[in-house]
Each structure stands twice: as structure tokens, then as C-alpha cells.
């Protein structure tokens, strides 16, 4: 956990966090995917890229909120790709779906090709787009909305991991 905390502090210092609506959201830059990759080598986690403009993203966030019921979910990371100009609506959306307690990032501007390529050179931009990092450093891409049962399973596993 020491490494994790150090990385979080480093990320906060390097990117700055936003206050107000979307409080705690950090700026996601081209360097962030590598930092998340490195962190997720140490502990299982899931990074979900989502957008305000994507109906299944809203559906998935609602499902995630229903699964969590306001609980923390260590290892669950949300990245909005709408840009900081949308910060207020992003914050309102996260609160509405009861996922504002999760670690959250925003891209500086609407996701463009260079940043998308830095995240995943095989990603054409479909949303939601998620990466599940599991034991043994496996990174599995999940395109599209994730079913409630699978989200429940992932959240439960992360919770067990956090206790250990």
C-alpha cells in the first residue's frame, strides 16, 4: 500500500485535483495510462473509460452505483473522456449514479486520437471501454457495457483484496 499511496500523492501533485462539482477528479494526461498500468501491476484494478455522450456508459455507471450502494471500491477507476469543460456535468453525473466516491479522472479536452492511442493503440474509440487488471499482471480489455453480475463479482473481489 505504501507504493500505492506514494503514486497517488505523486499523481495529485503532478496533475492537480479539481474542486467543486467533480471534486477529486484528476487530470488524465498522456502519462497517466503508464502510471495506472504500473499501479495495477501491484494490485488488481479496473479502469473504465466513459463519456457523457454515450448512453451505455450512463447505463453502466448506474449499474455500478447500484452494485456499490454508496460503498468505496478500491481498485475501481473511472476516466471521463469529455474534457474539463464538462466538469460540472461530469460531477453531477457521478453523484447521480452514486459513484462519486470512486477514484475519478478527466481528460483535458474531449478524447483525441493521440491520447486515445497512448491509452491503447488498438482502441477505435468505442465506449464504454474498460481494462481489468487481474492477478498475474493480466490486462483484459472489455468493450461495451458490463453486466451487473460481472461488475458485482469484480467489486467483491477488489473488496476482498483490500481487506487482505
Amino acid at each position, binding site marked *: 500500500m505504501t507504493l500505492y499511496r506514494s503514486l497517488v500523492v505523486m499523481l495529485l501533485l503532478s496533475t492537480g485535483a479539481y474542486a467543486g462539482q467533480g471534486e477529486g477528479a484528476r487530470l488524465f494526461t498522456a502519462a497517466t495510462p503508464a502510471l495506472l498500468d504500473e499501479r495495477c501491476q501491484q494490485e488488481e484494478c479496473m479502469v473504465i473509460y466513459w463519456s457523457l455522450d454515450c448512453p451505455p456508459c450512463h447505463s453502466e455507471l448506474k449499474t455500478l452505483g447500484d452494485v456499490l450502494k454508496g460503498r468505496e471500491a478500491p481498485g475501481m477507476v473511472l476516466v471521463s473522456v469529455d474534457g474539463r469543460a464538462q466538469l460540472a456535468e461530469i460531477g453531477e453525473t457521478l453523484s447521480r449514479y452514486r459513484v462519486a466516491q470512486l477514484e475519478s479522472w478527466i481528460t483535458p479536452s474531449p478524447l483525441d486520437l493521440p491520447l486515445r492511442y497512448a491509452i491503447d493503440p488498438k482502441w477505435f*474509440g468505442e465506449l464504454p471501454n474498460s481494462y481489468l487488471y487481474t492477478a498475474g499482471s493480466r490486462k483484459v480489455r472489455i468493450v461495451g457495457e458490463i453486466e451487473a453480475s460481472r461488475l458485482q463479482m469484480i467489486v467483491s473481489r477488489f473488496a476482498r483484496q483490500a481487506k487482505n
Partner: protein
Amino acid sequence: MNVFCHFNYRTGLLALVLFALVDGGHSVRAAAVDHSHHQHTTSDPAAPCTAQGELPDLRCAKSVTAALDGEGGLWVAWVSGGHIYLQSSPKAGSELSRAVVVNRQPERISAGNEHRPKIAFGRDGRIYIAWTEKLAKRFSGHIRFAWSDDRGASFSTPLTVNDHLEVTSHRFESMVVDARGHIHLTWLDKRDRLAAEIRGEEYRGAALYHAVSTDNGVSFSVNKKLADNSCECCRIAMAIDPQSGLPLVVWRHIYGDNIRDHGLVRLNENGEWGEQQRLSYSQWQTSSCPHHGPSLAASSEAYHAVWFANGAEQSGLFYSRVDRNSLRRLDERPVGSAVSLSSHPSVVTMGERVYIAWLSYDGKESHVLIQASPDGGESWQAPATLASHAGGTDYPFLLSDGERLYLSWHRAGEPYQLVRVTK
């Protein structure tokens, strides 16, 4: 302002080569990539899109729509601060006019990627603009329309085309004008989904709707549903069949168990819309938003569509050629390379010549590549790079006035770029 932008020698040469390949019998001497360069003027050229209170600037637009009228004039529409601005030049590549505001009352206008205003031309120099007005609720909107009968000097008070006015999605409009001068609009519409939800029923995706104006845009018909269960966030493609002079439509549809392939439907000469045909069989099953709609063009004997899929069997861009008489699929082939993220295609026809342009990325630069067929899509030349840019860009669009071919490619913060590809 000259809207042709500067190109390096390599890029210009590739455009010349492409021209030589396609128009092999003609002299390449006259083939033109104009090397003249002109910056769009602004009070702060170094940072045109950051200053508070700045005047609207084409460079700062998220997306740009360009169209050529029947006389070779260029028209450019873009959105800033709740207004659509329209600029023109009587000859593509020459100085753009001062911007005219299309909608005098500001609206929340959809702009960016799959969303942008549309431009079409009617008889007697009429100009038509269509767009989506965003409403307060997420994913809701109205299809809006305005016309000009004084060559764009002024525009009519906008009207709403969708006759269902509840706050739900009427978005992703597409517009063409047929040979009779009738204006056809199609869009993605969730009125049926809303009704199903009220009944407690499930409705997948959206629906494809159509309206037509036979009075130069003064009014539009009762809306007609063309298809249930369209994908809900991909642009629609329309074209005019050169034989019938009537419109056809291609869109991403939801087939079976969330299979996201493409449908085609056309207006027949009896005035009825034909049955929906399935255009693609990628079998891409996804619950995602692709945000990646098709492009469509028509030649005398065939329809030409380029579309994206990302399934296990087909991933990347694909070209489909459809016989215009039988609607039988004649050919299907990959376009570009999935490795270089080939995406957001644009297809046009010039007689029997077919051109496809698309965006790609190599990890350092975005490129627009172009591929040409001299024989109605039966055979294809090798792709060539037409333009490059370090950083993010808008989608590429091919424009043709029937004689010359151009690439319209907007890069946020940069001067608008129009590349002349053929003589």
C-alpha cells in the same frame, strides 16, 4: 483569405501521383495541390481559442462542414457560442467571405465528431442548413432547419423538423436535395423508445425517421419512420441516386442479438420507401457506442458505402459496392489498416470514379489517406497519403463538384484546410 493550406513537397507529390494514377491519360502538369498559404486573421494568432471575449473564429470550431455548390463555390459552416456561422468563396480555394450568422437566436447546437451542421443547395441559388439543437436533458434534441434565398446573405427563422416535440432524442440529422429540388432529412429518433418505456416495454436503440420539404424548406412533411432499432450515436449517410434522382440512406443498425451492422433503404420512383436491405455482415456484437458512422456515394450503376466494424471476424474499415438495380452486394473489401487505426471514412463519386479518404494514426501524426477506383469500384489503386498533422484532428471529408476533388480537413486551432486532389 485563401483557404488552400501549405503542404510539404512530399504531401503534394503524393496528391499528384494519385491524380496521375486515376486520370492516367491527362497531364499531371495541371494537377493542383496549391502551395499558397494564408492564415485566418485573428487578434491573437498564437492562441486564437483561449482568450475571453474573442470574436468567433473558424479555427476554434470543434467541427467544420464544407460543401461545394453546383457552380464550384465553397461553403463552410461551423458552430461557436450557440450560433452557426457560414462562410463562402465563389471559387473553392479563394478567399472566404465574412461569416454570416444562420440562427440569429442562440441555441445549444450539437457540434463535434459525429455531430455537425449540414449544408445543401436547392434551385435558384437556395442554401439549406440543418442541425441538431441540444435540449436540457442529455441525449435529447430537435432537428432544426433554415433556408436562404439570397445566396446566404440572410436566413429564414429556423423551424423544427421533427413533429414529435417531447424532450427525447431527435438527433444525428442528414440532408440531401433530390433532382426535383425536394429536401430530404433523416435522423435518429427515440419517440418510439420513449413510448415503449412508458408502456414498460423494452426498445433497443433508436429509429430512423424521414421528412421531406417540397416547398424549398418553408415546411416539412409529417415525419415517417423508415426503420426501428437503429444504433443511437453514429452519423447517418445519405446520397442521391444519379439515375432516379432520389435519395438513399445507410445507417448503423442493431440486428438480432446486438449485432451492429448497416442497413440501406432508398426512395423508389413510385414515391414509396423500399424495404430495408442489410448492407454489412460483420456480425459485430457490442453493447458499446461506436461513434463511428458510415459514408455513402452513388454512381450510375452502383452504390458505394464505407463503414466501420470491430468484431472478431471483421475489424476496421470496409468498402461495400451494391448493384443499384438489384441491391445485391457486388463486392466487399477492407480499407486501410486496423493497425493504423483507419477510421471515419468519406467516399465520393465523380462519374464512374470512386474515391475513399480516411483518417489514420501512426503514434506520432494523424494522416489522411486516399484510395481511388477508376472503374466504379471494380479495381482500386494503392492508397496514398494526402495530408498529415501532428495532433488531434476533425474527420476528413471529400468534396466534389463533379469535376474536381477536394479534401476538407479541419484541425482545431489551425487555419481551415482545403486540399485540391485532382485537376
